């Protein structure tokens, strides 16, 4: 019916023509990994970048705590019974000597807050890393194998999730006695299950994807499918969750220390300081305010940063080829 055009058409397309060449203009970001793409997006996010700077400063201060102490001239546990307390034996307000005031034992709050950041970061990061490592492995294994393996692991995850954290933590600490190690382990023990649940959920859906079936049809082993095909695809939510789990762990540590069940005194911890302030804040607002602010700023910075990371990994905004239905999403 339309033979005419075809006949006088010298450049009739070859069937095996590289149609990829036409795309050159659109694919300038060639070969960038999803991680790089997310980072590029994150860098445009001002709030996240400010938070990152704040986090960096906190980390640097924590690392430089001994330096700060020697500059100020007060150790974290040094008690200045004369200079650091009022004649009535109460904490002293901020002065040139103690820029954030002193606590009820005449210790320099500023130095103690700097030292406290070490505990917060250490517990926050360490327990998160342990939780994520355990959670990812259990989540992938449960989700991938399914069946009885999944049933058992999923029950385990649910059980751990349904234990009230604080109550159980208190119970464990009351038996073992408080220490830094116990704090890290207790927090990690109650955090891995939520990571595992998220990863398992992801793997359950990824397992049904055609590319996993494709790998199977090529004869790939279970281990290869789990770690070469599936793991990279759960990385994004795991990274997001990791950044959000750190502040949660920091708060958990502070709460335990506040209840006297975290890192035992005299080690400086923010929670411990706030516990100490309970009897003094009516006469010494700084005792409550500065450790509280330090804690709040740290968790806020991590949460804002984590929120930015989540946005950066949001698949809804990194599509290269927006089809009609996808542009629909963009509008909303």
């Amino acid at each position, binding site marked *: 019916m*339309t033979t005419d*055009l075809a006949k006088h058409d010298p450049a*009739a397309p070859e*069937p095996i023509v590289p149609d990829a060449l*036409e795309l050159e203009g659109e694919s300038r970001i060639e070969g960038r990994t999803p991680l790089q793409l997310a980072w590029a997006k994150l860098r445009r996010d001002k709030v996240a970048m400010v938070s990152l700077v704040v986090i960096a400063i906190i980390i640097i201060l924590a690392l430089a705590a001994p330096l700060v102490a020697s500059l100020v001239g007060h150790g974290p546990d040094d008690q200045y019974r004369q200079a650091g307390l009022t004649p009535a034996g109460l904490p002293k307000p901020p002065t040139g000597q103690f820029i954030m005031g002193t606590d009820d034992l005449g210790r320099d709050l500023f130095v103690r807050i700097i030292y406290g950041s070490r505990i917060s970061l250490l517990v926050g990061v360490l327990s998160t890393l342990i939780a994520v490592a355990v959670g990812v492995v259990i989540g992938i294994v449960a989700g991938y194998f399914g069946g009885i393996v999944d049933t058992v692991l999923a029950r385990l995850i649910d059980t751990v999730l349904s234990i009230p954290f604080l109550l159980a933590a208190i119970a464990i600490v009351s038996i073992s006695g408080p220490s830094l190690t116990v704090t890290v382990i207790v927090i990690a023990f109650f955090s891995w299950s939520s990571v595992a649940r998220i990863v398992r959920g992801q793997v359950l859906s990824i397992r049904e994807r055609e590319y996993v079936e494709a790998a199977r049809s090529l004869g790939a082993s279970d281990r290869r499918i789990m770690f070469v095909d599936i793991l990279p695809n759960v990385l994004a939510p795991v990274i997001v969750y990791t950044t959000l789990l750190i502040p949660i762990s920091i708060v958990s540590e502070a709460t335990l220390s506040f209840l006297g069940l975290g890192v035992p005194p005299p080690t400086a911890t923010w929670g411990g300081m706030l516990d100490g302030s309970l009897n003094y804040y009516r006469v010494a607002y700084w005792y409550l305010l500065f450790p509280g602010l330090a804690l709040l700023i740290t968790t806020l910075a991590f949460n804002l940063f984590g929120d930015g990371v989540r946005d950066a990994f949001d698949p809804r905004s990194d*599509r290269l*080829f927006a*089809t009609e239905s996808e542009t629909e999403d*963009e509008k909303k």
Partner: protein
Amino acid sequence: MPLLEVDDLHVSFGTPDGVVRAVRGVSFSVDRGRTLGIVGESGSGKSVATQTIVGLTRGARVSGRATLDGENLLGADPDTLRRIRGAKIGMIFQDPLSSLHPYYKVGWQIVEMIRAHERGTSKSAARQRAVDLLDAVGIPSPRTRIDNYPHEFSGGMRQRVMIAMAMALNPAVLVADEPTTALDVTVQAQVLDVMRDLQREFGTAIILITHDLGVVADMADEVVVMYGGQVMERAERRDLFYRHHHPYTEGLLNSLPTSGRRGKLTPIAGTPPSMITPPPGCPFEPRCVHAMDRCREKPPTVEIPGGGPHTSACWLPVERAQRTKAEAS
């Protein structure tokens, strides 16, 4: 004056990757009792164009003119548009399962539609109408099925429910956006039949959006071919299939594995253009075997003589289309 008229419609969206110019100067119209087919591949802007008219593309930048029965649609205030949606323009979509609310009974959803526009209608009266509607679209035992949830219906039956709902207030225009794409061919035939019957009975104008030229050949009176957010060709059905002018229309038809033709197909080389940085001239120019220098600037919209409102946005001589007709006859 046509019932629904769209003139020089432009729609764009801001996205993180840049501004997507989904529709760039589209015009079409449809009359009472007639079916306009809008054909195009994914990303051609065909759905965006129709959804914009009824104000369903929120957050889009829109310009142009659209009128229904003389009443202005673009730029109308949200309340006016809301009264038009459903009452005067009914819509059905591609996937009837995801388009019906999974938590509500189908009867509830139809009754809601009726009562949203006719405040005075009692619940029982609306329910009786819903039963009649389900019956009209060929759902067996509608009196019991009205209390079923969408997931208790098959794909074809769900789409019938959607049609019943869209037709509930006897709208002047029915916009069917890929209504049969998710359905099997035998079911597609049933659903198209239902639409045809309703049109005959109520004189509804239908805008049928599809990528399937076969559906268009079956249903449409007039056809608009879209590509890269623009109209490439517009013609009466037979003109479009037997006397088309635009190389894109030709390419589409040649790509089809039509019955009886074995061996090699003649596809269109290349891929559709980016809608963020569309080609400055004719969007089809990068893939067109007839591309000329001036195609890179702007294609003309020429009227093809020979009866009917046949236009084509292409620089090629008009005789091409006429010659094809001579050979065909």
